[in-house]
């Protein structure tokens, strides 16, 4: 890797950005060497990754270009960061002397354009801020990940994130209209905002989902929609079997309805949310929204579909509404979770996959059974489906365990990775995708070639073309040495 010394790197960064924007405080470097994936060891005061040489705060695309160019010329690893809510190790600084390039201060909402139904903002704009601003004017992005109060637009695009209303509005890839991104050579590129074009491949998809491994996203334009929560048609049911639940979701999608929310919880995962009304039951949630006639028609039609399944019992929608209003995570919830982990030594982790309708139930059942039988100290093994499509759905596995008889540094190898391995291998074996919406990060890269099969050639060629020196977020998406 780089032969440039730490001091030289810091000095050059200071000459580009000024002293105040180059942070070398050890505590900051430690925190910036990891993300949520390593929170168990981090909470216990262990930092096992090489510390970055500096965290730099960038203000505009020119600064981004200058820093990238410098890193590229001197073979210095650079980790892009915005909201810092990554869950899969995407923010880990895997090699010595990395630069963490933080875009959270590039947080201007550049333009809200209700006539063309689009909004443009810088990469560090928090989704919550954009959404608040839009809602005040009667609009919404339609994007509502649970991390809405934490995540920012650059990271949301870089991870191919998805929100709770995705079944209607789509994932971030369906929302992004145009983009600006800087490549390792310092090349600033802008993809214009147009409704559609057939001028060759859709190059937005080189950028969306790149996880900082190809380029640095500086600006994003997304679609906006009319915000009409008063028309929401919310439905909640309890039922006995996940299999029935998947059948209902499939029928709703196959019949051509577009609910905004389509969620199905199994008994175990549901117990942590719905124990006050659904003991030992699965829970199905559907919501229609949009213009009133459409929301009502969709809502009623979905009710009719569910009514055919006798095991489904309707619950008061207020039970679902109150739960939903408390679903998102803000900083105080993150802090509370840290205390709880520290005191109970119990941690909750997740892995999200997707598969076609004919495969999803078997994947779900096999994974849950295997984890329960093969892994020690489990306190919860379950999951939910939260994003449905015409040809299939996702499964969000939730697994909690007590970390016992090991050093906090071994939590990942003793529990988290073996569980992930079960889920990923079973999913790939069954023909599903191992990553539904958190990105590959650094801990699923060992299966990336299997995930892609023969099409890995295309993915790998992108890396070779855009980041030939491999300075962009080493070990992310593409396995490190």
């Amino acid at each position, binding site marked *: 890797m780089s032969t440039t010394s730490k001091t030289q790197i810091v000095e050059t960064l200071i000459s580009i950005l000024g002293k*105040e924007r180059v942070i070398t405080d050890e505590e900051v470097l430690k925190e910036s060497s990891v993300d949520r994936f390593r929170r168990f060891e981090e909470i216990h005061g262990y930092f096992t990754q090489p510390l970055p040489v500096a965290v730099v705060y960038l203000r505009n695309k020119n600064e981004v270009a200058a820093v990238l160019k410098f890193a590229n010329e001197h073979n210095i690893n650079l980790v892009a960061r915005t909201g810092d809510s990554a869950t899969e190790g995407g923010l880990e600084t895997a090699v010595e002397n990395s630069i963490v390039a933080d875009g959270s201060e590039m947080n201007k909402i550049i333009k809200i354009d209700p006539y063309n139904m689009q909004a443009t903002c810088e990469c560090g704009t928090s989704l919550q801020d954009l959404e608040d601003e839009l809602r005040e004017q009667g609009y919404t992005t339609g994007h509502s990940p649970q991390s809405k109060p934490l995540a920012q637009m650059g990271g949301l695009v870089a991870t191919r994130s998805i929100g709770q209303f995705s079944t209607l509005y789509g994932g971030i890839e369906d929302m992004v209209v145009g983009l600006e991104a800087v490549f390792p050579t310092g090349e600033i590129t802008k993809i214009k905002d147009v409704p559609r074009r057939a001028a060759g491949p859709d190059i937005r998809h080189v950028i969306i989902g790149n996880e900082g491994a190809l380029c640095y996203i500086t600006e994003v334009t997304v679609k906006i929609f009319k915000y009409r929560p008063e028309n929401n048609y919310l439905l909640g049911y309890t039922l006995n079997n996940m299999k029935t639940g998947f059948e209902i979701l499939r029928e709703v999608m196959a019949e051509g309805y577009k609910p905004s929310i389509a969620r199905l919880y199994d008994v175990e995962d549901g117990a942590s*949310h*719905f*124990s*006050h009304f659904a*003991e030992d039951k699965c829970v199905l949630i559907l919501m229609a929204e949009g213009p009133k006639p459409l929301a009502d028609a969709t809502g009623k039609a979905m009710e009719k579909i569910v009514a055919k399944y006798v095991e489904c019992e309707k619950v*008061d929608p*207020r*039970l679902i*509404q*109150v*739960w939903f*209003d*408390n679903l998102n995570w803000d900083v105080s919830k993150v802090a509370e979770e840290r*205390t*709880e982990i520290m*005191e*109970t030594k*119990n941690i909750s982790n997740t892995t999200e996959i997707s598969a076609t309708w004919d495969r999803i139930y078997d994947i779900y059942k096999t994974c849950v059974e295997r984890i*329960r039988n093969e892994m020690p*100290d*489990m*306190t*919860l*093994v379950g999951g939910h489906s939260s994003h449905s499509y015409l040809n299939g759905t996702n499964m969000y596995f939730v697994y*909690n*365990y*007590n970390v016992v008889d090991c050093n906090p540094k071994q939590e990942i190898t003793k529990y988290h990775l073996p569980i992930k391995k079960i889920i990923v291998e079973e999913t790939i074996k069954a023909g599903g995708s191992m990553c539904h919406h958190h990105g590959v990060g650094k801990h699923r890269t060992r299966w990336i070639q299997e995930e892609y099969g023969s099409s890995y050639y295309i993915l790998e060629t992108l890396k070779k073309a855009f980041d030939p020196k491999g300075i962009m977020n080493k070990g992310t998406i593409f396995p490190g040495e």
Partner: protein
Amino acid sequence: MNILTCFKIVSDLDLMSESDWVVEDHFRINTSFVKNMINPYDESALEITLLYKEQAEKLGSAVNLSALTIGSKQLDAYLKTLYALRFDKAVRIENQHDLRFSPDAISTVIANYVKVIKKPEVIILGRQSGVGDNAKTPLLVAEHLGWPCISQAVKIEPASEGLLKVSSMADDGLVIETIRPPCVLSIGNAPNSYLRIPTLKDKVNYGKKEIEVLEIENYLNQAVLEQPSEGHNITGLKPINHKRQGVVIEGSTPAEKAQNLYHNYLQERLKQL
């Protein structure tokens, strides 16, 4: 030693939005839409009980743990969890009456239960629960039984010859007392006392024991049950104003901002420490 830990299941009121606070029929606020949880002080009481058992058993003394709650069948899930955490006995006193604001009634039930089974030497309870509660129950249980009570307890350790070493918070610090049971311990704001979580295997192996269900009428006379609310009714609701004033510290550089913060806000306060 036989220990009885009493706990109450409450609604997680943090999940209620302002518009959910509506006085409905019978002067009640409907909280059934939000999740339940173990009252946080009682959660501490349960964890402290388990910690005590671990320590005592290491020293070779046997400890028998019972857990008691008062309410409907819905609460059995919590009792099953306590079985999985190796409580020896889980008891629910079935009740459908509104005893939310009735510490006297609740404490009478607990004390009468204890008098009947004649067993526990130590009763541990959280000091207080959510809205409307008044930190009376543990004190009243002690009074009904004529036992001493230590309030604001935060730690219980075994001492020699069946004695207990109890740490409790007082205005000017921590008080450590060694006492001889029987006694009632009212658990205060105890650090490190989130209730541990049982594994799935322990739930299967231990969580299925039968819960002892008793009728409240055997422990409280009918007249109190029918007129328990001690005359307290909700007459209205007013939101508490949680707004705080804030000041944006001005300065063109972080160093200048830090200087301003120090000179204008911290310097004087630090002098007073």
